[in-house]
């Protein structure tokens, strides 16, 4: 039940440039270690905002975003750390935001659920389920109107695929052939509700097929599968051939919110988690690239050490960054420029 890359070995591995494989791995590792760092520091209770960890789903963010340019737009949700990191956001500014600091991405106004990083194409993330999907369609509309060649990606969960706005977004995107890619991360839960209590069929892709755009379901724990499908979708969008939909089947390891495990609380069966942990997107891909001599174990250790330093630095930065002043609570209600 582990993620299988081997079937690709003969004909597909070597076409991938080594840099690509390393970049994918590095991105996943960054995300994983970032989240683990939060798990480490959170109990101190000085990071005073809800955090929704992405551990287990790293292959999706990494496999999609590697296809994007800096100017391309992504939209994400409450569970946005992975997407932002994959798109290029800065650890320091993220942590500063999570610590509610003035130098954070949102000057301390957003917290972990609301990330913004316009330089990297992140114009905001919405913690309202389904909220970001039509907005991504809107930036795609803008790109069409302005002919700026950008692609928009909407990341969202299986839960979000139940909101009416999702279907409204699909309809309009196909109608206007907009350059948008819909990436549904089906991790089979919305908070603690299993998908079986919310949808008659866990194959979300089936309900999208009728819209007349390319639709595919992929192993969301296999970064190369995600990469392949996202590449096609992004190229298609970039070429003006309209939207695509990708359902990535994956799994979140930690509780819905906060750094804890949730299976002890009875939120889901331990065995289910165990099965999915065997399919760890990071570990399996690590073995794969090592076995294929893209990198040595030592090289990987080196990467980890570097990232560990970076993350310690980011935490230190976030903790020591200046607090906003109380009066600033009244700033930024309106844009007065």
């Amino acid at each position, binding site marked *: 039940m582990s993620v299988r890359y081997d079937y690709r070995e003969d004909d597909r591995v070597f076409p991938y440039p080594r840099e690509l494989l390393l970049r994918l791995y590095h991105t996943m590792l960054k995300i994983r270690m970032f989240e683990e760092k939060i798990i480490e520091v959170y109990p101190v209770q000085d990071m005073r905002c809800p955090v929704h960890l992405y551990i287990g789903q790293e292959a999706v963010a990494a496999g999609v975003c590697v296809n994007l340019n800096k100017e391309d737009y992504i939209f994400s949700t409450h569970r946005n750390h992975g997407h932002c990191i994959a798109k290029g956001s800065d650890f320091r500014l993220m942590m500063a935001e999570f610590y509610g600091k003035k130098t954070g991405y949102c000057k301390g106004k957003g917290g972990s659920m609301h990330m913004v990083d316009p330089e990297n194409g992140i114009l905001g993330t919405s913690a309202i389920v389904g909220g970001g999907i*039509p907005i991504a369609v809107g930036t795609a509309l803008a790109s069409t109107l302005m002919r700026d060649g950008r692609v928009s990606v909407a990341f969202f969960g299986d839960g979000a695929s139940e909101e009416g706005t999702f279907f*409204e977004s699909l309809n309009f995107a196909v109608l206007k052939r907009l350059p948008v890619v819909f990436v549904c991360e089906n991790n089979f839960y919305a908070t603690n509700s299993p998908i079986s209590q919310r949808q008659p069929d866990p194959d979300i892709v089936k309900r999208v097929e009728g819209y007349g755009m390319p639709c595919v379901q992929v192993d969301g724990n296999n970064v190369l599968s995600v990469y392949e499908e996202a590449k096609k979708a992004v190229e298609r969008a970039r070429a003006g051939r309209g939207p695509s939909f990708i359902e990535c089947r994956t799994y979140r390891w930690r509780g819905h919110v906060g750094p804890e495990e949730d299976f002890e609380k009875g939120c889901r069966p331990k065995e289910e988690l165990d099965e999915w942990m065997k399919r760890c997107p990071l570990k399996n891909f690590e073995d794969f690239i090592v076995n294929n001599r893209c990198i040595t174990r030592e090289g990987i250790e080196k990467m980890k050490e570097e990232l560990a330093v970076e993350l310690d630095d980011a935490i230190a930065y976030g903790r020591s960054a200046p607090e906003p002043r109380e009066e600033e609570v009244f700033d930024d209600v309106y844009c007065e420029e």
Partner: protein
Amino acid sequence: MPWTKVYLDKEEFERAKEIASKGLRGLTYREAIREALAVMLERDERVFVMGEGIDDPGGTFGTTLDLHKRFGPHRVFDIPIAENGMTGVAIGAAIAGMKPVFVHMRVDFLPMSMDQIINHAAKWYYMFGGRVSVPLVVRSIIGRGWGSAAQHSQSLQALFVHIPGLKVVMPTTPYDAKGLLIASIEDKNPVIFIEHRWLFEQIGYVPEGFYTVPIGKGIVRKEGEDVTVVAVSFMVYEAMKAARRLEGEGIGVEVVDLRTLKPLDREIIFNSLKKTGRLVIADTGHRMCGISSEVCAEVTEGALPFLRAPIRRVTLPDTPTPASHVLEKAYYPDSDSIIRAIKEVIEYDKYR
């Protein structure tokens, strides 16, 4: 100043035109709205207009008529019936640098898009620390009569006034309709722009080309010494009618047209109240937690000493709208209701 004038009927405007030394151009409110859109579509390529059926032969009561022909179907286009999603689309376009105007035939359809308006458009700029603004205009229309009934006759401005981050504009005259719509499109923030169908045929002076009327400023439509009527949208006309009729009885009514409900022009209300000491508020919307409530609250907090009599509110009752014309008549306030309210506040301290 001809643009501060409310012409109660076409004849009145024609008289004003005759008298005016320079020729005044008369336009209906509907034409003024359409001209504002045309001016902005012409001037700024980031502007586009979207809405259900806006390119049809009705053209949103004439306010978008044939604009798609002039500016092309990419800049003025019809959309699916999917208000929440399409508001999200408009927000997305706005944050990516466009300036969308989303047109709704009735304000009653906005509850569909409340999530995108309240949770997204209104909060975006603040939530992201002022990094990304949402220059979006949501035009919508209120009306009354002909049995439109509960789901097609609301006047929901108060819901938007309650939400931080939004601006709420309700123009009364053709001059203001054009100038405020241009100002709203120029504004970097989400503006809920509410028109009244019963104003669409009103004629007034409207200059050609680009001009703005500042958001956040009310205007005194008529001066008076005895009582202030703070009014909104179509109720300004009813207030003017009431004022004219009461002139005969020697009662001086000052009519303040709020024009913008959020941010609210506290000054103009207080200044008028200082003079008259008496206040009536006339709104097109419901009573509880309406704009009339907010004006009362501002006064009790900041201008209580000037108040010589209880305030009277002339609003829709806290009742859904009925269809029958008999019930509609009982339902809608008009100049008579305003006159009754004025008399109450005036008589209050007459015998003290």
